[in-house]
């Protein structure tokens, strides 16, 4: 089960520093194929920096990052592009291109595929837009005309355009109202099941953690302090971890009947 072949992401000794400010030091993390890994940690503990390092938006100061068994540090551009086509990234506010309609946004990654005629491309974009639960007439609107929740869904549709194996999500439910957030959780759960995704999920939202995650990694003190199932987290003796999972919100989320076992 935990053989090297099952690991889609393997990080060893990662170090990230901004001048004198060390964000990560000796960080190790594994992510298995087909799992939803929740990455939690206080504000400024470097969750976004970790995500950006993995997807190659930031060159780490030291350490080794393997994705699909390939070392991503010092990889040449064409090979990187080949691997990057197997993952999708959804940024916090969707990061949609504001000058394009939703459909055109979703079509952007599809344009890189040779031999895809425009009609098929449009149909595939519309399919993804429908799959993330957006109404068909949303496809012709511009991002500025949409609510935050709809922009996030559209960002997800674009991240899913090429049927990636891994999806990276940075705080997908931040800024959504509770109803919108749990709708997003449900959508993600259905998509994970239908598309067989592995998900790297950065979040603050305890409800999302309980609704989606198979495993959790806690970032603190510049490294991954603990990994394991949500039940394992309850036993971790670290002040932040205890406050986070045993605090009033943690208790409330735990009681809610929406664990991954309850699918």
């Amino acid at each position, binding site marked *: 089960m935990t053989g090297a072949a099952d690991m889609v992401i393997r990080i060893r000794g990662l170090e990230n520093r901004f001048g004198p400010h060390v964000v990560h030091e000796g960080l190790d993390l594994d992510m298995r194929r087909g799992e939803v890994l929740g990455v939690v940690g206080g504000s400024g503990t470097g969750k976004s920096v970790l995500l950006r390092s993995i997807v190659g938006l930031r060159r780490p100061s030291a350490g080794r990052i393997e994705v699909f068994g390939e070392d991503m540090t010092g990889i040449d551009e064409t090979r990187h592009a080949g691997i990057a086509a197997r993952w999708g990234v959804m940024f916090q506010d969707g990061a949609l291109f*504001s*000058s394009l309609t939703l459909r055109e946004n979703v079509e952007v990654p*599809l344009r890189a*595929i*040779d*031999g*895809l005629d425009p*009609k*098929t491309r*449009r*149909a*595939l974009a*519309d*399919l*993804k*837009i*429908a*799959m993330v639960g957006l109404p*068909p007439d949303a*496809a012709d609107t511009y991002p*500025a005309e949409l609510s935050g929740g709809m922009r996030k869904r559209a960002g997800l549709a674009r991240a*899913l355009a*090429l*049927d990636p194996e891994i999806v990276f999500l940075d705080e997908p439910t931040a800024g959504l109202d509770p109803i919108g957030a749990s709708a997003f959780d449900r959508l993600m759960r*259905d*998509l994970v*099941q*239908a*598309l*067989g995704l592995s998900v790297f999920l950065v979040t603050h939202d305890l409800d999302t953690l309980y609704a989606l995650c198979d495993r959790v990694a806690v970032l603190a003190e510049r490294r991954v302090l603990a990994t394991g199932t949500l039940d394992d987290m309850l036993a971790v003796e670290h002040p932040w971890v205890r406050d986070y999972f045993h605090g009033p919100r943690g208790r409330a989320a735990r009681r809610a009947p929406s664990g991954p076992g309850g699918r």
Partner: protein
Amino acid sequence: MATVEPEHPQGPVLALDGQIGLTDLDRLRRLLAGIGGAPRATVSLAGLQRLDCAAAWLLLAEQERLRQAGTELVIASVPPHALPLIEAVRANLDGAEAKPHRPLSPAMLLDRIGRRVADAGAFLRDLLQYLGLFAARLSNALRRPRSFHLTALVHHCEEVGLRAVPIVALMAFLIGVVLAFQGATQLRPFGAEIFVVELIAISILRELGILLTAIIVAGRTASAFTAAIGSMKMREEIDAMRTLRIDPADALVLPRLVALVITLPILGLVADVSGLIGGALMSWAELGISPAMFRTRLIEGTDPIHVVVGLVKAPVFALIIGIVGCRAGMQVGNSAESLGRMTSSAVVTAIFAVIVTDALFSILFAQVGL
């Protein structure tokens, strides 16, 4: 990836195996076309390892297309791992019917032109409204000076006026130099070099000094006003002011406009002086007209009314630039894109409006014989 068994008793069978995805669509489409035509055909997915949404979509879309053409396409032996995907795609198939693009019809074109014209009318009315707002707030502030934001006024005078002095002076100096040089070249053949003084004085004092100053200030300040007010609008600071019962027109618009009305004439004067200095230096170098002679000639030969005609336009330009800039800032929506769009549109509009107004002034002064 595929084997075809065309002579199967229950119609042709296409067996897919391995991985099928986005890059195989063309091939898959051809294979499916190959087994169409019979009343019944089968696609077997038994050996399939990975199927993506695009391939699933194609299978289902072709199934529908073949059904309409009279062929029943059976998708058989779906492996368990592909089942949820196929179901998810089937559930969302309606959204994926490629809708045709709406072409641009003459009626839509007409509609668009009409909207533009109406927008332009609304824009002019808006500017007038801001002018009225400015007048009302100004009279208010004159009656109750305590409500006036004096610190802001001083700050904006520095930003708009003092900091623009170097660029305005340099620009005018160079214009003076160019005029003297061009004038010398043109006038020398006629032995009329001495008239270069009038040429420089009249063109700079009457027109160029203030017009070019206004254009520079429009570029510098209208954009700065839009960006400053617009980014406050974007971050809901303007709304916060309203809830705290601070009037944004008092706090943001009035000091900026007053600062411009005060400083633009001064900047125009700076431009006039520095343009004359540039012209005098070039006349000395090129034509041997000494600065003393230039001065005498300037005082004797040039009617001071030219200075008045030039500078009287300054407050009007100032109001135009300020109003266009502040209004554009207030129009900014909640996206960074609209901030950028409004900023550049403020600059273009301000410069255009300044030039049009200058033309109107020329006609006016010609009519009254100044």
